[in-house]
């Protein structure tokens, strides 16, 4: 029956249109100036943590407090870490109503460029001045995208420096002198002795981001341009800071690969390191002697607390603050928020009010935790079971007003402050690449990098043979276009920023 078929086809077409219409996300970006505090408002806050059982109870308590202050109700919406990436993308893409969304690194800059989160400069000046002061101008500039600020950073460690963590007991046993170690080569004699005396141990455990290549670049000084895979800016003494380069084409990279190869052949790494990433297991089970790690105040004591073995460290670099460090943890306001003014008021309150901050981070006093001293607490059994946010305070606001947990370094806050002050800001601070411009070239280059990087940086392949292949393949994947586009953007930014240099 032809008529029926036609009818059905029309019906389907209508359905498709209907479904498509439902797909309209999109909203005009309106930041209302006025805010009527007599109207209650619900704040939906998304951040990554395994949802605790007592979430509702804590929210209720918080709401009691907040009602009198700024008349909001808080709807904490923690999402499991493991699925956070997917879920937050779905929420953004699906146009779900959210008021606060936790983002970091590339996610943050990408969302900013797509305008999925709103620009908060004005809001912050008007409604969160104390927060702004607390974060500091340099730090805030590090999170600017195209000159505008798109989120409130968490006040925590603001810089990065690196160390080599090594087994203290083994070093003492064989009289290995680690104090003179300034470069990777200095480790060779130590490793040789180790291989002789303890053939079952692996001298150095390497993994992604913690290889000889990463170490050498950190020692030299470089800005990763917010963790970009294809380009960076070298900031060492002998480098031209105005140039954007592809790290894999530099002399330093070549040297690092050759070094890695030598170390691999000498047996300093686990033989199958390029195939199986078991560095965590090696470290935990005591088979690894040392590894390269990012340092922070109190990090060493944390490592020692959670390990069966005794560790010590050698400081390798000074603290430096790059864009990546500034966007490690940002709380943003998505475009679906209906009352950004109220939300910003909440942020200011949260960052300056220890009661509220610790309530949300640790739970209800005497139920989930007990105060051991003025500023130190201990989680109760119920707290561990029903409201354990697993030490993720750094996702939210101001870690300096958090209570210290019993067992942690009591001077943590002061050490952190000193650490942050000592950090040297990178000359590239505040520059964010618009990766959209070269997204097509990036797809091809990404595969090339996946193909060669690990083998080369872990020393599992011969750089004489592989490095030229790697570079030539990158060139056919149009890495030069990426470098050109990045250089152009960098030049533009530098011109606009001439005052700040």
């Amino acid at each position, binding site marked *: 029956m032809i008529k029926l078929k036609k009818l059905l086809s029309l019906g389907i077409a209508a359905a498709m249109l209907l479904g498509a219409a439902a797909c*309209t*996300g999109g909203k005009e970006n309106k930041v209302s100036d006025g805010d009527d505090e007599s109207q209650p408002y619900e704040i939906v806050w998304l951040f990554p943590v395994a949802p605790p059982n007592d979430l509702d109870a804590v929210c209720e308590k918080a709401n009691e407090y907040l009602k009198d202050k700024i008349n909001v109700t808080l709807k904490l919406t923690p999402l499991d870490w493991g699925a956070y990436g997917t879920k937050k993308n779905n929420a953004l893409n699906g146009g779900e109503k959210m008021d606060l969304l936790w983002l970091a690194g590339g996610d943050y800059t990408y969302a900013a460029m797509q305008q999925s989160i709103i620009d908060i400069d004005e809001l912050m000046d008007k409604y969160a001045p104390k927060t702004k002061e607390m974060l500091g101008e340099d730090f805030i500039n590090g999170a600017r995208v195209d000159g505008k600020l798109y989120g409130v950073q968490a006040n925590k460690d603001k810089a990065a420096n690196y160390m080599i963590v090594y087994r203290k007991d083994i070093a003492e046993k064989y009289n290995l002198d680690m104090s003179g170690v300034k470069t990777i080569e200095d480790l060779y004699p130590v490793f040789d002795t180790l291989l002789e005396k303890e053939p079952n141990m692996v001298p150095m455990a390497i993994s992604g981001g913690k290889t000889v290549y990463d170490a050498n670049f950190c020692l030299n000084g470089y800005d990763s341009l917010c963790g970009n895979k294809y380009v960076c800016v070298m900031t060492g003494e002998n480098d031209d800071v105005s140039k954007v380069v592809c790290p894999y084409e530099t002399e330093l990279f070549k040297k690092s690969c050759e070094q890695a190869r030598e170390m691999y052949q000498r047996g300093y790494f686990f033989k199958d390191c390029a*195939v199986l990433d078991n560095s965590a297991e090696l470290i935990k089970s005591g088979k690894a002697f040392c590894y390269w790690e990012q340092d922070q105040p109190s990090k060493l004591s944390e490592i020692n607390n959670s390990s069966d073995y005794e560790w010590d460290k050698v400081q390798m670099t000074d603290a430096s603050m790059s864009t990546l460090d500034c966007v490690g943890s940002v709380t943003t306001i998505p475009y679906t928020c209906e009352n950004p003014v109220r939300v910003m008021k909440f942020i200011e309150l949260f960052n300056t009010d220890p009661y509220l901050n610790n309530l949300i981070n640790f739970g209800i006093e005497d139920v989930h935790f007990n105060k051991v001293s003025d500023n130190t607490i201990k989680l109760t059994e119920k707290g561990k079971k029903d409201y354990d946010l697993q030490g993720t305070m750094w996702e939210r606001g101001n870690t300096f007003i958090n209570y210290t947990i019993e067992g942690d370094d009591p001077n943590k806050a002061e050490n952190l402050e000193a650490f942050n002050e000592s950090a040297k800001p990178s000359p590239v601070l505040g520059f964010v690449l618009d990766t959209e411009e070269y997204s*097509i070239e990036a797809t091809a280059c990404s*595969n090339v990098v996946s193909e060669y990087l*690990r083998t080369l940086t872990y020393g599992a392949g011969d750089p004489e043979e592989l490095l030229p292949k790697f570079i030539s393949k990158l060139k056919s994947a149009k890495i030069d276009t990426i470098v050109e586009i990045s250089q152009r953007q960098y030049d533009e930014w530098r011109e606009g920023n001439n005052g700040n240099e």
Partner: protein
Amino acid sequence: MSKIRRFTDFLLNDGAMFLMVMPGAILVLLFNYFPIGGIVLAFKNYAPVKGVWGSDWVGLKNFKAFFSTPDAWLITRNTIMYSVYFIVVGTILAVALALLLNELKKGFVSKVYQTIGLLPHFLSYVIIAYLVYAFLGGEYGIMNRTVLPLFGIEPISWYSEAKYWPFILTFVANWKEVGFSSVIYLAAIAGINIEYYEAARVDGASRWQQMKYVTLPCLRSIITIKLIMSVGGILGSDLGLFYNVPMNSGPLFPTTNVLSTYMFRGMSKVGFTTAAGVYCSVVGFILTILANAVVRKIDYDSALF
């Protein structure tokens, strides 16, 4: 016949059948046709703040991401090669297994064999990747430590030699799925009218002849249909097999990088992934129509439509 008569006739016969089709058809409408408008995203630069319709058109630019790699031909070749291997080898093995199982006397033992054959299907590729590593790993892998020395061969660095992997991956994939795939064929064999076999026996056919002249022809429909539908998915591949089992090892890319791993490693933008999906769908669609047309000429009943 009067109109009313025709209508009631329709209701009782065809009408009833339309009703039966409705629940499924509605589900398909909701979950498949409603979202299909999203295909336009393949031609747009999607920004959540602008929504699906507000985002800018970029024409075919998203498709370029697919073809911009110097390895475009290599990856396509790998994908198609593996798919063809799997379809052909997989079907032959699964059917053979079903036939062999069928030859055993029905009883506890044959049931046990069948259940055992099913087990590998439940291991995830992540686990299988570790097990394969136990076999092929550097110094301590079973191959290098025990098996190869038996034949006097030097240990091979399996994860750096691309040439062995087409074989390894085909072997692993079939090992995992042959038991599971044979289930369909076993079920089909179970449905063959027992009288056919009795007639064949009366005619003096041996077991092998029964297999050849009764079982296989009765399986023809289902084998053909499965083949036609597999052709539609020719550009797809199981990420677990091609990413996890080779441990994402770079030197193996020339023979293990397929379309889905390429996308996984390089693409995260909505526009790119949708475009890739459209590309694979279109190719699959054309191939299926062609395959279906060929089958229709030979054996009308076995065709898809």
